[in-house]
């Protein structure tokens, strides 16, 4: 029978994805970029929509929420998974509302007046069955997928508006978004890039070789020299792992130092981040914000005599407060950090902030 086979097939795929997440996040940096994770998550959610058994929007949302909780628990630092799940939930809500006939705008605006007068918005339980809902939702998810495919190109297209010739640009570590951003600008303009190597993983080396192969003048510096060379830098362009709800960043470690040095020299700090990295989390949980990897990266086991008497830390991420950031460049254009909260309300529904 096709039903049970499809279901087992689906659960197999979900399990495979979960173990991939668990494996991919542990160790020396992500084995795959965030864009691929986002795409895979969305594809998996589309498959769930298509193959799982559900009768109403509420059921579907329950299923997705359940799977989503498992996925985010598998790798809490990979926030794009959670972001995609919330996007899909928002899509389902929208399609449901459209099927019911009520306009989208009234649903979204939660003014104080509405909260006091109606009170009925929260009683919406999505129980009505619509035949065309499945097809609509899958179509909307396909649109989301196409949007995801084009994010890097969209960001790279804006490069020429921000880089003039003979500039010195500094970046840290390796970000595929920034790499394509700079390569796109290098087709028309000549500039110089300084890459901080970002110990202990030294992802900056790979970035530098890739940029220099595209013909860009690149220099690799050690992390310790960031402040020393900052006075000659015109712009700092970085990528990030997550954009937080207050406009701050959770980026690779060393970025906070870079941001402080840029602020000291009044150098603009530009963050290239596609919209799927925007996460409704706030940076207030001290314990859950940071992620650590094996201290072997920092102090290898060859230093055995002192290892047992010493605490060694190897954090992976850094928090950068929004005051240090000048501009966000995303696939829908450029924004100031103070605008991020508005974008969030467009992408996610407030009830989905907690999965």
């Amino acid at each position, binding site marked *: 029978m096709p039903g049970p086979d499809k279901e087992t097939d689906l659960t197999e795929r979900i399990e495979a994805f979960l173990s991939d997440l668990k494996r991919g996040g542990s160790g*020396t940096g992500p084995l795959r970029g965030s864009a691929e994770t986002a795409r895979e998550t969305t594809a998996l959610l589309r498959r769930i929509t298509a193959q799982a058994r559900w009768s109403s929007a509420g059921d579907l949302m329950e299923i997705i929420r359940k799977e989503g909780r498992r996925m985010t628990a598998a790798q809490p630092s990979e926030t794009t998974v959670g972001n995609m799940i919330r996007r899909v939930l928002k899509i389902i809500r929208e399609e449901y509302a459209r099927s019911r006939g009520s306009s989208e705008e009234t649903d979204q605006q939660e003014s104080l007046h509405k909260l006091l007068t109606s009170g009925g918005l929260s009683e919406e339980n999505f129980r009505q069955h619509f035949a065309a809902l499945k097809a609509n939702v899958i179509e909307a998810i396909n649109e989301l997928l196409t949007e995801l495919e084009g994010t890097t190109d969209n960001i790279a297209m804006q490069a020429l508006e921000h880089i003039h010739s003979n500039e010195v640009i500094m970046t840290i570590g390796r970000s595929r978004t920034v790499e394509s951003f700079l390569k796109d600008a290098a087709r028309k303009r000549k500039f110089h890039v300084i890459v901080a190597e970002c110990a202990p993983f*030294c992802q900056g080396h790979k970035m530098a070789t890739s940029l220099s192969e595209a013909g860009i003048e690149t220099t690799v510096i050690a992390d310790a020299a960031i402040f020393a060379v900052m*006075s000659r830098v015109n712009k700092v362009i970085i990528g990030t792992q997550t954009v937080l709800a207050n406009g701050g960043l959770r980026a690779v470690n060393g970025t906070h130092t870079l941001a402080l040095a840029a602020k000291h020299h009044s150098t603009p700090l530009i963050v290239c981040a596609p919209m799927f990295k925007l996460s409704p989390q706030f940076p207030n949980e001290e314990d859950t914000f940071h992620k650590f990897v094996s201290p072997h990266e920092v102090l290898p086991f060859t230093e055995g005599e002192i290892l047992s008497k010493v605490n060694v830390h190897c954090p992976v991420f850094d928090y950068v407060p929004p005051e240090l950031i000048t501009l966000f460049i995303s696939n829908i254009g450029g924004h100031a950090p103070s605008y991020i909260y508005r974008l969030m309300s467009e992408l996610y529904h407030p009830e989905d902030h907690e999965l």
Partner: protein
Amino acid sequence: MADSGETGGPVKKDGIQQAKTEGKELTKEEKQRLRKEKKQQKKSKEKKDEKASQESEKEKKPVSSASPASQPPTQPITPKAPSAVPTLVPVPASETPAPADKPAKSKAEMKAERRARQEAERASKQGKKGEVGQQAAPGKPKAPPSELQPVVKRLPEHVQVDNPEVLKKLAKKLERQQTPEYNAATKVKIPLRSDYGYKVSLFSHLHQYSRKAPLTQQLSIPSTVIHPAIVRLGLQYSQGIVAGSNARSVALLHAFKQVIRDYTTPPNEELSRDLVNKLKPYISFLNQCRPLSASMGNAIKYIKKEISNIPSQCKEEEAKSKLLNCIDRYIDEKINLAAKAIAKSSIEKISDGDVILVYGCSSLVNHILCEAFEKNRKFRVIVVDSRPRLEGREALRRLVQRGISCTYVLISAVSYILPEVSKVFLGAHALLANGYVMSRVGTSQIALVAKAFNVPVLVCCETYKFCERVQTDSFVSNELDDPDDLIVTRKGKTQLEHWQEVPSLGLLNLVYDVTPPDFVDLVITDLGMIPCTSVPVVLRVKNVDQ
């Protein structure tokens, strides 16, 4: 060049022959004419001097390789008359026995020789007065520093690497810096170390050497010019075996003690002048191995002053023991006792329950922490380290051996760990006269982040590292280390292995950086605790004392 020599020659020959025919003594007119000729031939006179000195060299020592090699480089710099003069200083010493050897020499050559000798003597008097530092002057005419206040200094050679004339001058200077060994059959010159790899354009004015090509490979064994203790020291510097400003200064002083012990004054020479001349090639050699640090520069100044202050009637043994005592006292006072004094003042600043952050391996800061631990202060230390030198591991070992509880992170994690920290202790390589702290690269970054988190930053520095230079950024005067040190192999892959083949890729390995004084809260010296801006006051007080 040959043409102008010929045109100069016959004219002079006529004048001299006329003088001969009219009588032995030159009349006033003849003298005036000669003076005019001298003025006209001022440019060609330099070439003649070179030719004359080379000829005298050729006749005395059968080394033909040196002279034709130095002839072409002298051509483009002949217009710079005053600067070419110091290079002739060592020559007259070797030229004095020359006239006795040569019976038949043309009158023109003898006249040129006489003129060269006069110029050289004049220059040696000037040169002795203006003996400051160890670098040759580039083509900037300056008054001797003893006449002015030491404001206008000679620009050191090691920040003029992008000026090819300066490089040629240095090459010539190294060739000429030979200790006059009268019996030496071969002349060994101090080799010029060549730069390695592609230099980032912002730093093309600095040297960049490779650790795999030490200078000693270009020296012959055994080296007759350079004392073996100095050769060993140079090798230790260039390979990084002796590192850290205190260690380098102490090693230098010990090596000089050895040199003084093995020194014997040659006949007809004064110890005070000859020993200083003997030290010059050693210092150039060490500079080629690794650029001198500010502390080493101050130590060398002190030694040279002590040597030149030795009275001429002092016997050799007495003078040598006096110098050895001076050096011992310098090390004792300026380094050991200063460390004790600084430790005493710093311990007042360490309270129980403190979490202290240190960066890299500073011998002084380690000493302070160990002393504080002996005095039963309860604190823990966070050691921050950075690639590629990873000096923090050495500091970690020393502290853990004493039993101090430590944490270890890399510099990129400093903003994660700083909220726990209560104080930051930093060491310094030099303190500049405008209040900037020159230290290992990364220090300014730590000070910046500490300031952002409102954590006090204390710099510990002995007064002998205070320097009269001023600097506002880390570019104009720095040291570039071997760029290959940045290459790392992770999981079997070396990303930057072939960086030399990629034309647009450069690696930058800086050694020092400068920290602005607004990041530093306090400087602890052996004279007490001062703010960063009081450095020129201390320098002035020290100068007045001396």
